[in-house]
């Protein structure tokens, strides 16, 4: 199942569905990296609220997305990690180092807007 990527002003929003295959994740990565320059976006939000499991591949892909988008000149924030998922992730050592995280979509937008404001 492909992940829809929505454009909202300066920001791209990708919302994960519950079950994503590794191929879907790869597709999302290339889609985001392409569109961030195409739409001249300054920020990307990846919403993982619906995910009840986060394996090492998904976690690595999220980190790669963040770093690649940084190289393409925009900021990424991961939002909506569930408490149980967060606990399971740190126990597996998947701590998403160097990746910005926020509670939900609203917080993510607030984070990016603040970031944009300080860049001016």
């Amino acid at each position, binding site marked *: 199942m492909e992940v829809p990527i929505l454009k909202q002003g300066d920001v791209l929003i990708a919302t994960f569905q519950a079950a994503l295959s590794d191929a879907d994740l790869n597709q999302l990565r290339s889609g985001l990296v392409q569109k961030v320059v195409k739409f001249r976006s300054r920020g990307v939000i990846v919403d993982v609220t619906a995910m009840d499991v986060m394996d090492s591949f998904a976690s690595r892909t999220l980190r790669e997305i963040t770093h690649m988008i940084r190289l393409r000149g925009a900021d990424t924030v991961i939002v909506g990690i569930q*408490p149980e998922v*967060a*606990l399971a992730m*740190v126990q597996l050592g998947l*701590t998403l180092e160097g990746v910005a995280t926020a*509670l939900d979509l609203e917080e*993510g937008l607030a984070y990016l807007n603040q970031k944009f404001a300080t860049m001016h």
Partner: protein
Amino acid sequence: MAQREILRDAGLGNDRATELTRSDVASELLRELVAHLRQNRTQLREEWVTRISETRLLTAMTKDEIFAEATSVYDSYVEALETETFEALQAYARNLSERIIPRGVETHEVVGIVLLLRDVLARSLFAKYQTDFKKLNRILDAYEPAANRIANTVAVGFVQERERVIRQQQEAIRELSTPVLQVRERLLILPIIGVIDPQRARQLTEQLLRGIRTNRAKVVVIDITGVAAMDATVANHLVQTVEASRLLGADVIVTGLSPEIAQTLVTIGIDLGKMNTVGDLQGGIEQAERLLGYKVTTLAEQR
């Protein structure tokens, strides 16, 4: 006399007959035994109580109390032997435990007094049947398994009651000990007091993560001033808590680390880059306010 005849017959019969009648013989013997115990109730009970005070068991109770309890235990004991059912005794043991546990009676004392009673009764049987060794043997064959089962029942009842009390208290402590408090909009504090075991650490983490989500917190101050020491497992759990909170978008400030805990954290070599620590709770709250963009001033300064 007639009883004795029956027993002798059974004893002399062939193996098959012995098989068939063994349980009958055993209950016959138990009946005789119970009659003996009833007959000598006063004397045996007194001897038991004397033995209890001689061995300095149940020191938390007065002599009268011991005598009263001994009487009920004795009667329940005899009843259990007679009916060969242990439910009533079990219920009594539980009830007794409920009463004496708060007074500090230890497991070894309860086991000790039941074993003493077993010994006292066995001695009285030796005295009664000293002229008839075979009979004594048979009586003991019937008595010992039942007596052991009784001792077992009482001891298990006591230990179970104790465990129940401990579980109840643990639960109470757990419920009391994990408050997640909001001190400002988007700022939570989690004061931790007492000993942290892995189970409690896990519970704290879960509660904090839930608190972060429901209060939409951005900064959390975990104050561990009240924690004297923690082992490597729990320290690692603390680090995990910090990381998991960050995944929910909240920054964590840890305050009040004791020198011992600082030592532990250094020894296990945790990544201090991930940990934001401040000396005391006040400093932690001040830093959290700065992170959230608050500026606290006195009214005089404002003017």
